[in-house]
C-alpha cells in the first residue's frame, strides 16, 4: 500500500486520541489503561512511519517534516518510559500535548517528499544517528515543559522532588544526545574523512551538549538557586532549537554546512 501525507491525518487523529486516553488514565491512576492506550497509539503512529518508509524506499529522516514525524512518535514513547520508571502522573499529558503540536505543524505545513536520498546519506549510521537525536530532543522537550511549569509555580514545597525528576530526565536526554553526537562522529569519519570538522551543525551540537552539562554540574553544588537551575534548562533548550533548525536561517551557516540536505 502506498502511503502519502494525505493519509497522515487519519493515523494522527487515531494516535492522538489513544495518547489522550492514556494521559487521562494516568491522572486517574489507571496504570494498565495508560500503558495499553499509549502503546497502541504508538503502534498506530509507527505503522504510518513504517509504511512511509516502504513507500519512499528510504528511511523517512531527510526533511524537517520527516524528522518532526519521528519527534511526534518519540515524545509519547519518552513519556511512557519515564512514566514506567518514575510514575509521574502528568508526564503523559505533557508528552501528548507536545506531540500534538508537532503533528499539527506537519498537518498544516506538509513538505514535499521525494524518494531521492543522496549517496552521502546512504549509510547504516543514518537512521540511528537521527533517531537517537530525535529521542533526545523529545526528552528535552518534556524537560523544558516541566521546567517552565516549575519556574512559574508559586509553592516551593514539592519542588525538590520535581527537581530530582528533572535531573533524571536531563540525564536520559543527555545520554541519548551523546549517542547521537558520537554516532555522528563515527559516521562522519566514514563519509567525510574526519570525525569532527566544526561544521555549523557540529558547533551547535557541541554548544547544546555543553549547556546541558552546565545544568548537571550546577546541580551538584552544595548551594543552589532553583531559578538558576531552571534558567539553564530553558536557555539550553533555546540553544537546542538553534542546533536543530535555527542554523538553517543563520547567515554565518549559509552554504557552509554539510548538514543542510532538505533544500536540495
Amino acid at each position: 500500500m502506498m502511503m502519502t501525507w494525505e493519509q497522515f491525518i487519519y493515523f494522527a487523529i487515531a494516535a492522538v486520541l489513544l495518547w489522550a486516553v492514556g494521559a487521562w488514565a494516568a491522572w486517574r491512576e489507571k496504570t494498565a489503561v495508560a500503558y495499553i492506550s499509549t502503546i497502541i497509539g504508538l503502534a498506530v503512529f509507527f505503522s504510518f512511519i513504517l509504511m512511509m518508509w516502504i513507500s519512499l524506499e528510504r528511511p523517512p529522516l531527510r526533511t524537517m517534516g520527516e524528522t518532526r514525524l519521528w519527534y511526534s512518535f518519540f515524545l509519547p514513547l519518552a513519556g511512557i518510559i519515564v512514566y514506567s520508571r518514575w510514575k509521574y502522573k502528568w508526564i503523559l499529558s505533557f508528552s501528548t500535548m507536545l506531540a500534538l503540536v508537532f503533528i499539527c505543524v506537519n498537518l498544516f505545513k506538509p513538505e514535499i517528499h521525494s524518494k531521492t536520498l543522496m549517496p552521502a546519506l546512504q549509510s547504516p549510521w543514518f537512521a540511528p544517528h537521527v533517531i537517537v537525536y530525535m529521542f533526545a530532543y523529545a526528552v528535552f522537550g518534556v524537560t523544558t515543559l516541566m521546567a517552565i511549569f516549575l519556574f512559574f509555580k508559586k509553592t516551593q514545597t514539592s519542588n525538590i522532588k520535581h527537581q530530582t525528576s528533572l535531573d533524571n530526565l536531563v540525564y536520559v536526554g543527555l545520554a541519548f544526545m551523546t549517542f547521537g553526537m558520537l554516532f555522528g562522529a563515527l559516521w562522519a569519519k566514514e563519509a567525510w574523512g574526519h570525525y569532527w570538522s566544526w561544521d555549523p551543525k557540529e558547533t551547535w551540537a557541541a554548544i547544546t551538549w555543553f549547556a546541558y552539562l552546565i545544568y548537571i554540574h550546577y546541580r551538584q553544588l552544595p548551594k543552589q538557586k532553583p531559578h538558576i537551575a531552571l534558567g539553564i534548562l530553558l536557555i539550553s533548550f533555546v540553544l537546542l532549537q538553534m542546533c536543530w533548525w535555527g542554523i538553517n536561517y543563520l547567515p554565518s551557516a549559509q552554504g557552509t554546512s554539510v548538514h543542510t540536505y532538505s533544500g536540495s
Partner: protein
Amino acid sequence: MADFSYICTRIAKNEIEVVARTGIWTMKEGFLIGGGLIVAGLILELSVGPVMWEAFAWPVNGFVLAGFLTIIAAMFLLRKSVSVFRFIGTYQAAIPTLVYAVVLTIIMGLTRQTPDGRWLNNMLTFWPFVLVYVYMAVILGVVILRRFSKLRYHRSMQDVAFLLNHCGLFLAMTTATLGNADMQRLRMITVVGEPEWRALTQEGTIRVMPLAIELKQFIMETYDDGSPKRYASEIQILTKSGKNIHTTVDVNKPVEVDGWKIYQYGYDTQMGAMSQTSVLELVRDPWLPLVYTGIYMMLGGAVCLFALGRKSMIIDNDDRS
C-alpha cells in the same frame, strides 16, 4: 555512629571536601580565572598572532602531551599546598569554565568561520578560545586523578560512570586536538587506465604517495529525476609495500590500505555517469585509535548516564534517610 560513617563516606566521595576545602574560593573566582584566560588570550593574539596548529606535528605534539600530563599530575599532587590547584578540581571551577566554553562556542556558531580568517572568524586558532578549552582539559585531568585517588576508599558504579565520561572526553579532546597536525588529507585525481601516484595536499602542492591508484571504471546510478543515487570508483591499488588490490570505493564506504583511508570524493559532474575521472580523497590519521578509544569510553559513559540517571554522578542528598 551512623552519622559518623555517613560523613566518612562523603569525605571519601569528595563531597564535603568541595564545601570545606575550597573555603573562600567560589564560582566568582572561577569566573575571574576564565576572564583572566580571555585577557591573556587576547594579549597573546595581539603579540604572537593566532595559534599555529601546524607547528604541533610529531614529535612536538608528543612532547606537548607528555608535558601537559605532567603539569596536570603536578597540580593534582600539589593540591594540598596550593589553593588554586585545589580549586581546579571543584564544581565551582568547572561550571564557569563550561559557561565560557559555551559562550565562546556560541560566538563561533554565529560568526562565519574561514580557514584563513582571524580572530572571531577563525575561532580554532583564536587564543582565548583555545586557552579556555585547554583549561577545561586541565580541570578534567585533575578531576579524573582526584576520582582515581578516591577509589582506595570506596568503589561504585558511579565511579565507573564518572571515569568513563570524564576520561573519555579528556582523551578524545586532547588527542584529537594535538593529533590534528599529523592528519594528512590529500586529493587524487584518477583517470581511467592511468595509474596515479601523485596527490594534491590541502595547500595545493603535489606529493608522491606510497600507493598508486588506477581507475578501472567510474560507476554512477541515478534516480528517475536524474539526481545521483550512487557513485563509486572501481579501482586497482598498488602499494610500495607490494600489495595489489582490486576494489570499489563508494560514498560512505572508504577502503583502508596501509593506514590510508581512501574515500570517494567527486567526479566530473559535467560528464555525469560518463565521467572518465574520479576524485578520491586519501586520509591518514595516526592518532585516530586514541580518539576512538575516548569516543567509545564516552559511549560507555552515556550508557551509564541512562542506566543510573541522576545517581550516576553523586550520592543523592536524600540517600541519608
